[in-house]
């Protein structure tokens, strides 16, 4: 896929051109417009149960819809959108290295990239907000989006990132979650209050703003929901 990302960091969009017969996959709801492609949808079942109870309610089942765009003979083009006001970036998934991406940040990927929805590393982090973690493997390009701007940190040693700011990272890094403050009180009152300490060598994609904090600041102002 030939990607052009414009209008970042606040209102990014991706314009993708496909060669005849080429297929890309994207999360449902991301497509703005398209021409010259056949679209199909697959439903990805998630193997694990309980933790994603909240997610299950949000999505109405333990599944996640993906659209696949295959260009016809003249080639095709697809425009993709972000969910929140933010940026987009293209990442290269290389054979042998896996990239972990926050589910809200996955936008699209080439056919050679395998999208696995059951990454267990961060388990229930943000699960009640409908987020889970995706593992990208194989070889090819993928597009991620963010809340706010995206910037990359090439970790070589150690680096601490607040969990709400993690967009994606290479699985060559080891990580350890710990509470940000000295007490659990600040962690509970502040939402997650967790930071992730990465160590080793690898790239981390970070977003400038914390989506959950934004959600929590708006939540009390909105009408209550039934469940």
């Amino acid at each position, binding site marked *: 896929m030939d990607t052009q990302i414009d209008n970042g960091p*606040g209102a990014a969009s991706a314009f993708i051109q496909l060669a005849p017969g080429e297929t890309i996959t994207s999360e449902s709801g991301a497509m703005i417009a398209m021409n010259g492609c*056949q679209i199909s*949808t697959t439903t990805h079942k998630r193997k694990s149960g309980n933790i994603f109870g909240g997610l299950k309610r949000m999505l109405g089942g333990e599944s996640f819809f993906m659209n696949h765009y295959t260009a016809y003979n003249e080639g095709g083009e697809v425009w993709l959108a*972000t969910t*929140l006001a933010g940026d987009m970036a293209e990442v290269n998934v290389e054979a042998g290295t896996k990239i972990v991406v926050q589910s809200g940040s996955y936008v699209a990927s080439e056919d050679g990239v395998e999208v696995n929805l059951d990454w267990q590393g961060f388990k229930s982090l943000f699960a009640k907000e409908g987020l889970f973690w995706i593992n990208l493997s194989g070889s090819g390009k993928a597009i991620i989006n963010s809340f706010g701007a995206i910037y990359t940190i090439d970790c070589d040693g150690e680096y601490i990132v607040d969990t709400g700011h993690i967009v994606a990272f290479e699985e060559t890094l080891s990580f350890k979650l710990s509470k940000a403050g000295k007490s659990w009180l600040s962690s509970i009152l502040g939402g997650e209050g967790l930071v992730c300490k990465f160590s080793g060598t690898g790239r981390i994609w970070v977003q400038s703003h914390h989506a959950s904090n934004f959600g929590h600041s708006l939540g009390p102002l909105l009408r209550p929901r039934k469940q």
Partner: protein
Amino acid sequence: MSTEEYEYAEEQPTSDMDYHFDCKPDFSFLTVQIPANETLKVEASAMATMDTNIKMKTKLKGGLGRFLTGENLFVNEFTAENGPGEIGIAPGAPGDMEHVHLSGSSIFLQNSAFVCASMGIDVETKWQGFMKGFFSGEGLFLIKCSGEGDLWFSTYGAMIPIDVDGEYTVDNNFIVAFEDTLEYSVGSVGGYKSLFFSEGLVCHFQGKGRLWIQTRQCPAFAGWLHPFRPVKSKN
């Protein structure tokens, strides 16, 4: 099928009124210089600042019928009395803005995209063929702007113009505006799934003309916000 390379025009194209944009594409703000004794019609609540010699009158466009459908277009008319006046306009949603000058042709706009127009522009909420958009597509409430004059419209997110020559398919939630030289039909695409709670309706365009799309949609934002809403207590 072809899409020309797009470059934002830095110079204003022909317009009867002087204007300029600031803070595109994230927080677009429009400033218009209304000539003496002329009037600008502006979407209600969009006026941010204005000179003291500008006077305002409120109108409900489209009459009672439109009010009942739930789609309102409250329009305020701002007239510069005894001299020219400057008015600053900000639409409700943070995003982009565009200007077109119409001379006889028409543009269809998503209802929420209308920002302001000079008096020579007729804003119609019903026209022949209006049923196509209204009844066959969920949420595709179009208004038709035609006549002679300036029109400004806005988006949620950034705006991208596409010069269609052949066909193009756009998800209903991302359509902003299109020229009347394009044929359009609302429907679904086999195999396409949009947001979980959305109908997944798209609009197929055919012909030759310009189409404007936006880079974000409100339903996706609302869907993302849903888990953050407080849960109703049972008592």
